């Protein structure tokens, strides 16, 4: 059974600071997805990465996929209160359709 560990579990920082959160898998990802979930809502897909070493940018968010496709990081530059939420990584298990989610990082940005 694939285990996806995310760190840190909780992170609280001031607005304007930079931060990085991590996702590590016990096995190679089929493809890696990052989601953000706000209170009372379902997760919303931020990005999908497939190729080892791939880097994707989404405005102030930078996603990096490890060369061995077993780990990933999400870096946020100049964090804003709107970035607050639960960040989840997931293996999309292409061909299997089920998402396997990580343990999550709960991020709070203090104005």
């Amino acid at each position, binding site marked *: 059974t694939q285990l996806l560990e995310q760190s840190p579990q909780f992170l609280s920082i001031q607005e304007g600071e930079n931060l990085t959160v991590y996702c590590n898998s016990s096995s190679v990802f089929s493809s890696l997805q990052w989601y953000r979930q706000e209170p*009372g*809502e*379902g*997760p*919303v*897909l931020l990005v999908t990465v497939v190729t080892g070493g791939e880097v994707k940018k989404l405005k102030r968010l930078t996603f990096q996929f490890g060369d061995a496709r077993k780990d990933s990081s999400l870096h946020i530059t100049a964090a804003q209160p709107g970035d607050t939420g639960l960040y*989840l990584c997931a293996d*999309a298990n*292409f061909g299997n*359709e*089920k*998402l*396997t*989610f*990580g*343990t*999550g990082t709960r991020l709070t940005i203090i104005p």
Partner: protein
Amino acid sequence: GAGVSQSPSNKVTEKGKDVELRCDPISGHTALYWYRQSLGQGLEFLIYFQGNSAPDKSGLPSDRFSAERTGGSVSTLTIQRTQQEDSAVYLCASSFFPQGGTDTQYFGPGTRLTVL
């Protein structure tokens, strides 16, 4: 357009009672998924429907859990004889499933189930 909707948004029930949770997927999406999110277990897969194929029930935690999808659209997740450990947020997602591939899963807001 309209997203995935779920009802009720909150459900409080007594231990031993049966509950039904409803999911309305995005129109035209052929795949429908149920997940459960709890403090202890995180977000975990329960069951998956794709078109007219037999559902993948491999994530259902016990035979007290069942789900059906009528007419390839609306789905109902039923939990019989609820237990306190069933307390969680139940999330539904749907996706368009093109031939030979999959698409983004879009999640509903969830149903928060509390078993007293």
